[in-house]
């Protein structure tokens, strides 16, 4: 075991450009973001909409172009990978998206959705594919006869189990979970969260967990990075961050979480329609 992180992101900057007449408008969605994830660790990237957390995940997955910075994975310069080398790398790093309704091809059977990666990466062929698919479905808590069905025949929770099985099919070591439980009903969410934790531990997965729900994050993350307006404003071990948040935005986020017990209800300090704190650029450099 080396001490070098499995994923090392430095100075990551992603700018979206909207083509238009005259001056092109651009938005820097991710602005000089740095973080590292050790093997076996789960780093949660939390923030509100527009904070840049999903764009960061997409950059790490090489799904969006990067304007500046470096992403190193197991010592490999991810941004330099092209063609066949990038394709081979994708086996090591898989993703589960928020919406299982749109991330699964509606015309494919579950067997074909889960088995595709096995074939593409030459992991299995012929009858072996079906056997592996059945095993994977079992691993995520679905019965073997799910294989012959189509996504529309499944519930939201079942679909998300399929998305997890598909991600695990190629036996990755790194899993990106982009709001993977956010669209689910609360009872389903609890089951899928438990499944993710169980699989992570059994398979020794390293995870990048993107979420906006702090209570969910507290349950799964070893480290938490808080994003605001394209920047990471605070990174800390999970326990430290929730017990002793340092950044005012982290505090505002924690304070805004509704009470989980009516007896804890209190008059809130947050009021007004502006953002809860000034832009982080305006905060003292010590933060």
């Amino acid at each position, binding site marked *: 075991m080396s001490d070098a992180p499995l994923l090392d992101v430095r100075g990551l900057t992603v700018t979206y450009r909207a083509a238009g007449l005259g001056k092109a408008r651009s938005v820097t969605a991710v602005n000089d973001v740095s973080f590292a994830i050790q093997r076996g660790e789960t780093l949660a990237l939390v923030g509100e909409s527009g904070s840049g957390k999903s764009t960061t995940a997409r950059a790490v997955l090489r799904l969006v172009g990067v304007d500046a910075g470096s992403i190193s994975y197991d010592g490999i310069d991810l941004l330099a990978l092209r063609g066949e080398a990038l394709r081979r790398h994708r086996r090591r790093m898989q993703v589960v998206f928020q919406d299982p309704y749109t991330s699964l091809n509606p015309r494919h059977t579950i067997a074909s959705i889960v088995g595709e990666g096995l074939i593409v990466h030459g992991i299995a062929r012929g009858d072996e594919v079906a056997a592996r698919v059945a095993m994977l479905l079992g691993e995520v808590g679905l019965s073997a006869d799910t294989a012959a069905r189509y996504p529309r025949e499944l519930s939201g929770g079942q679909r998300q189990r399929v998305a997890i099985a598909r991600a695990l099919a190629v036996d990755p070591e790194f899993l990106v979970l982009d709001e993977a439980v956010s669209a689910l009903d609360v009872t389903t969410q609890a089951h899928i*969260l438990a499944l993710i934790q169980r699989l992570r531990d059994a398979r020794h997965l390293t995870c990048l967990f993107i979420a906006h729900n702090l209570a969910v994050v507290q349950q799964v993350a070893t480290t938490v990075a808080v994003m605001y307006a394209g920047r990471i404003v605070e990174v800390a071990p999970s326990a430290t961050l929730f017990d002793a948040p340092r950044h005012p935005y982290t505090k505002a986020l924690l304070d805004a979480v509704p009470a989980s017990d009516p007896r804890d209800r209190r008059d809130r300090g947050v*009021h007004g*329609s502006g953002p809860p704190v000034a832009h982080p650029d305006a905060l003292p450099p010590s933060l």
Partner: protein
Amino acid sequence: MTPILSVEQLRVIFERRSGAHVAVDRISFAMNPGEVVALVGESGSGKTATALAIMGLLPDGGHIGPGSAVRLDGQDLLAMPERKLRDLRGRRIAMVFQEPAAALNPVMRVGDQVAEVAIVHHTDDRRGARQRAMAMLERVGLPNAAALYDAYPHELSGGMRQRVMLAAALLLEPALVIADEPTSALDVTVQAQVLRLLLELQRESGTGVLLITHDLGVVAETCERAMVMQAGRIVESASVDDLFHAPKHEYTRELLEAMPRLRKRA
């Protein structure tokens, strides 16, 4: 005390190609004036169908079963002609939806959309309606209401749009507001602000609020009483304190168990 809203044996059926689907299965409940009550459930539990049935806004294919009654101020809404219902909607009963972007007219200035409520109900002339709407936009905490009056919905953030929705819903101080997942599409810091605003307005105007939500945290934060819905039925109705600390129904316990809880620092 006469209940402001009384729902008796409400049954809502949706006709689908696969046959009739009972979305709401003979539920009964009542709300007192000024009360804040939650209707909690997961997707498909029938909570939104209940709201739309009360408002008389069920979509095509949905209808209310025989033997149902919905009384507002003692008047049966289900037996009322549409013309009379339209007079009550906005004036005595109003609704706030989850997606203000979808509920607001994209080509109409937001201030005019708030003023329209007063114009439709002939409570004010155009000038008076404009002034009333302007004052209401200020009351819901929109900065620089005068400038925002002329903005279009797309120029506002999600939280500001929901404030506009609240302004329109509460403009004529209705007896009851049905808020269907009013903060579910909002970021958590904005959610906290909008919930607080909703309660402030509710207290000031004495409006009753039926808050429809899947989020037990929102219930704990805002309501005095809650009803838990599952598969079209109300399985438990209790004060929030009893519901959280002495749940009677197994499904309520399951919901509470599944609720992600933030362990907060002391």
